[in-house]
């Protein structure tokens, strides 16, 4: 139990008629991990979760929980508990009855249930609220009740389907920390679904980035952010500036591409693509807004970009400069606010500099929608 129960997806395909919702997913989730599936809405995240919890049968492939094939085992027999996207609290039951529903099923007495409910209510910081109805709670409180209800079933794996999406920003950020704390306290495997990269990055041990039924990359948050496998992963996770071009020259783990507008640029090839990208390939180069700094006017070279500033904005912790980029897209530059004075460049040409190791090169591919 201390190591937790792992979940494995092996060559998992899920089809709805002709439509392929999940395409050949292979995922190993370690016991006790906080694992996130991150992807835009409609990419098949819920579908994967429903296959793990037993509401959907895989069209092909296997779902293993704790090494056991789950084929033919119904949702009520699996050691999983699912927190639904809309929570699905039982509207006619009081909070404590909701929380201990799994005990009622097993025939526990009302006094046992009350006792356990009180413990869990303390844990989710809602002491004394057991006699309310779910409709009498706020969104964040309902959220926590749903978590308590799932935990009360003592699952080996807790599945969470975008549980924070209905909350406002402040509460969302608060609940991130809280969820992570709860996970560490109970020590079971959490599989978390979200379209919010901030949630995935802050909470997860590992993240799977999904695009239209396909898993693009599985890695920890830092790797995903700094070393994306695909153009989609690079553009979906965090903000990124893209430069397209053909590869002119490969130099070990680095390569130079020829862009239309910004001339030749050099970048590190992302780890997964090293040795695969060849000269002449279409490629995309990504540079984060915070990886730029302002260089002396007129500086040129393979890690300088010169562009005209369209507008600027002050965001508090950063100062953002937007310049004309390629294909109608802007280049965004974020300079940290360290107390220096910012001069307005609007309308002027500006030269930007980056370090080669902060720019990453991946094969050209689909970008995430804005």
């Amino acid at each position, binding site marked *: 139990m201390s190591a937790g129960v792992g979940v494995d997806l092996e060559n998992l395909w899920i089809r709805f008629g002709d439509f392929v919702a999940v395409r050949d997913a292979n995922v190993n989730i370690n016991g006790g991990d906080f694992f996130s599936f991150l992807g835009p809405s409609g990419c098949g995240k819920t579908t994967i979760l429903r296959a793990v*919890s*037993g*509401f959907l049968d895989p069209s092909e492939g296997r779902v293993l929980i704790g090494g056991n094939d789950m084929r033919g085992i*119904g*949702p*009520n027999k699996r050691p*999983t*508990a*699912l927190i*639904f996207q*809309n929570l*699905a*609290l*039982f*509207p*006619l039951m009081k909070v404590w009855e909701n929380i201990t*529903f*799994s005990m*009622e*099923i*097993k025939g526990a007495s009302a006094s046992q249930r009350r006792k356990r409910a009180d413990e869990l209510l303390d844990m989710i910081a809602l002491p*004394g*609220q057991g*006699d*309310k*109805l779910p409709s*009498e709670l706020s969104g964040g409180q309902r959220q926590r009740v749903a978590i308590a*209800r*799932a935990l009360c*079933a003592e699952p080996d794996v807790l599945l969470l389907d975008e549980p924070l999406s209905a909350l406002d920003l402040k509460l969302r950020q608060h609940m991130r920390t809280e969820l992570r704390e709860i996970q560490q306290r109970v020590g079971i495997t959490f599989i978390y679904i979200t379209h919010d990269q901030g949630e995935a990055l802050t909470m997860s041990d590992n993240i799977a980035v999904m695009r239209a039924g396909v898993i693009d990359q599985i890695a920890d948050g830092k790797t995903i952010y700094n070393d994306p496998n695909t153009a989609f992963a690079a553009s979906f996770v965090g903000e990124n500036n893209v430069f397209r071009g053909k590869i002119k020259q490969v130099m070990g783990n680095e390569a130079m591409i020829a862009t239309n507008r910004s001339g030749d640029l050099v970048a590190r090839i992302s780890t997964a693509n090293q040795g695969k990208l060849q000269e002449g390939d279409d490629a995309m180069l990504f540079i984060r807004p915070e990886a730029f700094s302002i260089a002396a006017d007129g500086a040129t070279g393979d890690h300088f970009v010169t562009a005209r500033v369209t507008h600027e904005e002050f965001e508090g912790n950063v100062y953002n400069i937007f310049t004309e980029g390629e294909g109608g897209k802007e280049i965004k530059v974020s300079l940290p606010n360290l107390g220096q004075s910012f001069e307005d460049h609007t309308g002027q040409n500006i030269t930007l500099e980056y370090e080669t190791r902060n720019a990453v090169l991946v094969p050209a591919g689909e970008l995430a929608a804005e």
Partner: protein
Amino acid sequence: MNNSFLRVSIWVYLVIFFLYLLGPLVIMSVTAFNSSAFPRMTPWECLTFQWFGELFQDQRILNGIKNSLIIGAGTVVLSVAMGLAGALMLTQIWPKLRATYYTIIIAPILIPGVVLGISTLVFWDRINRMLGLGADSVLSNGIFLTVIGQSTFIASYCMLVLVARLQRYDVALTEAALDLGATHAQAFRKILLPFMRPAIASAAVLAFLASFENYNTTTFTFGEYPTLTIELAQKVRYGITPAISALAFIIVALTVFFALLNEAKLKRQELVAAARKKATVEELAGKIKLPSFFAGNMAAVLLVVFAVATITVVGTATAYNPGQCIANVKEQKRLEAEQRIQELRKQREEQRKKREAEEAQQGGAQQSAPKPSNNSGFGNVFAPNTLGGDTEEESSEPETPPSNNGGFGGAFDPNSLQTDQ
């Protein structure tokens, strides 16, 4: 000016509308308390409760009520069960088939009840014979046939009610229950059924009322178990008495009572919910402060008034003895009749004298009394009842009912005239 005219016309319309709706019921209810042997409001004779007593001594009516209740209970169980099954199917079935399925299941509502009754009878008779059972088997039992026959279309009503609620059910709730370890049966019993409970209650009430008032279908299937509607229809064929008004009054009163009760309950839930919403955490953690039952609950107040009125009336009824009044009326009628007889005698005397005088003048004319115009059709012009009305004690021969009861012309029930004596 235009506006006020509009307002006045709306009020006038409302008054007419409610008169139209409730007038017959009010009048019928009033006739239940008039001692006149024929149900009518005017002339008012005496306040009496005798018709209620009579009602509860009428074995056929009582038996009809009993059969109606048994059949109603059976129909409620069968119709709600079938309606729920149909509703579950309808919400879960393939979208392509849904429209067809819906039409099929709604069809019985559109088929005339008479047709349903005949087909139920024919169908089960055929089955009965196929199984080689006799005429006394369960399949040809009146209660069985009536429950089955009524349920064919009442189940459709129930399904409509249930589907409306089921469409608001979030399937994720069932999934959540399964996910927490419940079996399908447990999820159904603990989650779906409680959610459906209000709709099931509505459907059950609807089914019971539809069964209770049904005549068309039942008339073919009742066999040896006539329901109340069947008994009433048969009774009316031979004549109508205020005992039937008394029954109508009881039904109206019960309806009003349950309507008020329901309204009061709903209102109370609303108030409680509102209060709980407003209550702070501490209040809820401690003791929930319920609003008093009556605060802002008009229906509850009316309900209590209604109950008090009922108790008063029943109390009065047990203590009240209209014997004096009835005797008075009888005496008055007798006096009136006597007076009339005197007058007629006088008239006759005068006529006789006149005739005698004429005879004396003309000699030896025939002896015959011309009939008074208002006593046409009856030989005995001296019968007191033709003048004073129709209290049972005084009349033993047929009479013409007053013109305002023309609908039942000649349907005067001789039985009812004797039962009270």
